[in-house]
């Protein structure tokens, strides 16, 4: 039987309690906000890029454990990645939380801890808010992202 602890794994509880890369990035050259109007989650993503490479990334905002942990894990995973790698990871992560497809757990690393979300469709938006925001930043979108 499915256990709620499969959703709220230790990694998630930990990243919710002490989110990594949390706070404003003063020398960011790209900033974008994301909202989930249904539940009021909001975050701001800060990126410092050098050409095609993510030099530094951070976020702030407020939301549930799933959305905070997801943003914390995502920002950890993105440091030093190229924008193309980031987009690749976005697709992999999206598959992880919305499908039963085989995913590349090696590539996902700690992000795989969010796999439990797929059993809670109502929470997919919480986990993907930061990712949609990152995707929009990479696409050069200036408008705040909304999950609705």
């Amino acid at each position, binding site marked *: 039987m499915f256990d709620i602890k499969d959703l709220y794994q230790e990694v998630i509880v930990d990243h*919710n309690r002490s989110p990594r890369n949390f706070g404003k990035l003063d020398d960011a050259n790209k900033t974008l906000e994301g909202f989930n109007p249904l539940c009021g989650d909001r975050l701001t993503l800060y990126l410092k890029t050098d050409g095609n490479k993510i030099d530094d990334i951070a976020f702030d905002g*407020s939301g549930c454990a799933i959305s905070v942990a997801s943003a914390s894990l995502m920002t950890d995973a993105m440091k030093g990645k190229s924008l193309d790698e980031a987009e690749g990871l976005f697709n992999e992560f999206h598959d992880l939380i919305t499908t039963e497809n085989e995913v590349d757990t090696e590539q996902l690393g700690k992000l795989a801890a969010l796999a439990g979300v797929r059993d809670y469709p109502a*929470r997919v938006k919480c986990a993907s808010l930061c990712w949609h925001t990152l995707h929009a930043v990479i696409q050069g979108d200036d408008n705040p992202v909304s999950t609705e």
Partner: protein
Amino acid sequence: MNKQNTATKLTNEASFDVEKVRADFPILFEQVRGKPLVYLDNAATAQKPKQVIKTLDTYYREYNSNIHRGVHTLSEKATAVYEEARNKVKEFINADSIKEIIFTRGTTESINLVAQTFGRNNLSSNDEIIITELEHHSNIVPWQILSEQTGATLKYVPINDAGELILEEYEKLLNEKTRLVTIGHISNALGTINPIETIIEKAHAVGAKVLIDGAQAVPHTRVDVNELNCDFYAFSGHKLFGPTGIGVLYGKQALLEAMPPYQGGGDMIKTVSMKKTTYNDLPHKFEAGTPHIAGVIGLGSAIDYVSEIDLHEAAEYENQLLQYANEQAAQISGLVPVGTAKNKTSIFSFTLDGIHPHDIGTILDDEGIAIRAGHHCAMPVMERFKIPATARASFAFYNTREDVDALIQGIDKCKQVFS
């Protein structure tokens, strides 16, 4: 009206037979995620008794047809039952006439109807509308739209830390420019029962009309529009154990007569020519098009159902559940109740230190417990308390002390998961 002051009274619980009413609600015996359902989201929508379900089934099986237009037997029957339901609503809220009972899609449409007919006809840039910080978005946004259309100014009555309206501030806002006061009878986010009798009286003293959003009130208190002397009263069928998609607007006849129609179409006309249309009499003037016939008939059945129940006794029973929940919750460290009005209904809104309401909602769902987590369509209330959201358990008369126990255990589970 002392029948509303049930919040703090304690009487013998045995006077309300909860097992008897539970047997009427088939859904309460369903399982969710392998656990028996504990339904504590009644403020969002109430469950339906088998009597209402059967009425809907019978309508569709035996006499489904359009109303007010056929000469055939089925249409006559459907029309008769539809209009009978209108009469039931009239009796239920003690209106003077069936002409004062307009069927709408729900509270939201009832309020929009008043804004776009009464409001547009009567308000201009010198006028003021008073609403409150406690309102549901459906009693805020229609007035913001009207304010944009007419230039009328919106003023908000503030609330105190318990979630009660500050009446002195209300009195300061009232003046000869006030055209309309529009206010919830009971707050959906906090459960506060507002002193609407006083509010109505004071509004009338400056010549303003009053709309009451009764969405949360009709399932918990007897509403008597005559005694209240409100000008409009809006509510939804689905919170009253009836179907979704059907609601009521009560309006004083003279006001409704003077208002222009809301929507044009079939049923709301007497004659139509290429040049001119004459509108139908009340209440049909405001019911354009084929209405939600099954919904109206189902609402009639829901009213029959609650009329068999002593709502006063039921409300006392619900308040005992609330009190029990409060006592149990007081043992839980980090739990902060939001909305502690002296006079309130059985809505238990709270936050837990370090745990977001959505996570509470998911963990409780895993235990088969349905609550609401979020801003409850009352973002100004959340802003007032400087929180993004709350978890809200809302009780109906079919809930039990065991449901409260399950809730409290579920909250413990939340703390375990996050420990």
